[in-house]
């Protein structure tokens, strides 16, 4: 077990280095840099050159990269030239929000997707199944930027049940925090449950044809026990993979939802950093988000083992 964890952590290192190198390369190749952002309409070739010299932007890319890497290895992720915030500050302010958003979204998505998948699988081919398949694709075709505003109009403007935008830290007022998070999380969940449902449904259908399900029926077990105990667990491996990838992506990728609901999450930080070519922030965020992704993969692996004892015992 310990070995397993250790191996995973060793794996994290090259992946993160590759991710950071890629980011550095891409960001450095982009036209325009931080000097232009800082100088704004005062940017002349001379002032830009001077500022670049001051900030060390004129050094060759690998020197800058290794300089940055050296600092990171000492735990120093740097400080934004633009806002003066340190990367760790910026990320620690925003990560909890993205994290909460994605956890809530995944919970909602699973709460919608799993029961529907089970019902559809249990009655595959029936009218309910067909209807849900249609609905799922319908939901898939409503982009988040549309569903978000529809939800706001419905729940915030018309019904006044939930706030339209904004955020309260969880520590400050948990109830209010949840009220603010419901709509954004629901928006994400609406976009994602169709995928979850489709995947779980087809896995469930396959599982329900297994001999051991027939045996469970022959044992006279209740339908609910068969579906939720005997069938759900073995069908959920793909589900776990998909959920893992989703979470990994959502940590850094929920920009649209964060923008519309004015949530100060990582996604907006990232887009802001790119828009201002704030390489230090960008690098730090990408590195941490990448680590989060690899960590998610790791958790998925652990979940696999928890779900399927065959994997736990090394029988692939």
């Amino acid at each position, binding site marked *: 077990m310990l070995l397993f964890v250790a191996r995973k952590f060793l794996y994290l290192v090259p992946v993160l280095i590759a991710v950071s190198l890629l980011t550095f390369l891409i960001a450095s190749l982009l036209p325009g840099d931080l000097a232009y952002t800082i100088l704004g309409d005062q940017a002349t070739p001379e002032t830009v050159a001077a500022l670049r010299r001051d900030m060390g932007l004129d050094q060759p890319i690998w020197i800058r990269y290794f300089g940055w890497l050296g600092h990171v290895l000492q735990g120093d992720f740097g400080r934004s030239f633009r806002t003066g915030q340190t990367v760790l500050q910026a990320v620690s302010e925003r990560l909890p929000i993205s994290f909460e958003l994605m956890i809530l979204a995944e919970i909602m998505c699973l709460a919608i997707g799993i029961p529907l998948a089970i019902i559809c699988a249990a009655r595959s081919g029936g009218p309910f199944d067909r209807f849900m398949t249609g609905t799922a694709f319908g939901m898939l075709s409503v982009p988040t930027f549309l569903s978000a505003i529809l939800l706001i109009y419905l729940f915030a403007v018309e019904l006044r049940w939930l706030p339209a935008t904004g955020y309260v830290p969880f520590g400050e007022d948990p109830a209010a925090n949840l009220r603010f998070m419901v709509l954004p999380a629901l928006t994400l969940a609406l976009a994602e449950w169709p995928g979850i449902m489709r995947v779980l449904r087809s896995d469930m259908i396959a599982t329900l044809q297994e001999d051991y399900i027939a045996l469970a029926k022959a044992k006279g077990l209740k339908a609910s026990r068969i579906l939720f105990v005997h069938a759900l667990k073995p069908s959920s491996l793909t589900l776990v993979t998909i959920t893992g990838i989703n979470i990994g992506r959502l940590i850094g990728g929920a920009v649209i939802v964060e923008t519309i609901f004015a949530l100060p999450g990582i996604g907006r930080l990232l887009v802001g950093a790119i828009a201002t070519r704030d390489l230090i922030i960008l690098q730090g965020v990408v590195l941490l988000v990448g680590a989060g992704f690899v960590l998610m993969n790791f958790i998925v692996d652990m979940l696999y083992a928890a779900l399927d004892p065959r994997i736990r015992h*090394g*029988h692939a």
Partner: protein
Amino acid sequence: MQESKDSLSRDPLLKVEHLVVEYAVGGHIVHAVSDVSLEVARGETLGLVGESGCGKSTLGRAVLQLRRAQSGRVLFDGHDLTAMHGDALRKMRQRVQLIFQDPIASLNPRRRIGDIVAEPLVIAGVKDPAKRHQMVCDVLGAVGLDPNLVMGRLPHEFSGGQCQRICIARALVLNPEFIICDEPVSALDVSIRAQILNLLEDMKARFGLTLLFIAHDLAVVKAVSDRVAVMYLGRLCEVGPSEQLFAQPAHPYTALLLEAIPVPDPDVRPAESVAVGEPPSPIAPPSGCRFRTRCPRADQRCSIEVPELREVAARQFAACHHPLIGAD
């Protein structure tokens, strides 16, 4: 078939020497084949029996170098296959063919029968399509399939028995000298099984093939083999001419196997089974004689000393400290 028995000592076509094959699985080592030596003479059929998982398929594959052996040698017609690689090995493989247990699984579900059977020809470099076509037609006809009806279809349109015929046709199309049949009838039904066994016998008579016939059904093995080898947990227990071995098993395991076979005769009430316990795992095989944990005759010596294969009766060899026949 008299002459093939005589040829035995003269001209071994295949010689396996001290072959060891292991798999690494999740940090453990599966001792699939441990120190197995055997010979197959030209024109002979050697039957190989043993329980599921005792390493028969592994041995068969190791002969063709589909699974590289940890140690030991495989000599085919005097050439050491274990030392061969790349093109040389590919050339040798064309002289040896393999027929698998599950006929449907061993045919690519997305290729047409005509292509599948012609595949060995393409690989062997038969360039002329017309010639290939002719050869495929001939061999399909030989296994009792109508080429015109069969060639354009996909495997799933055929029954298990037909698929096995197609596999046999594929194995025969290059006129190999040696065929390894890895449980070619286990997946088939009783009624079709007989057809295939008859076909194999027929092909052998027609083309003078040498066969290594792997199965776990003793009756089936006996029906086709000149000699039979019995394996248990990766080791060879007993080798001998079929009739002799079946009439007078020397190794307690062979005897146990023979006893356990249900006889389709209502008057023969089956004896309560004698064997104790489950077969041990090939990950941690018992020391000494591997059968000792289930052997009624086992004693101290069996757990210490690995029994060597030795002749217990005329041309019958057993690896047992306490064989059922022959002087101890």
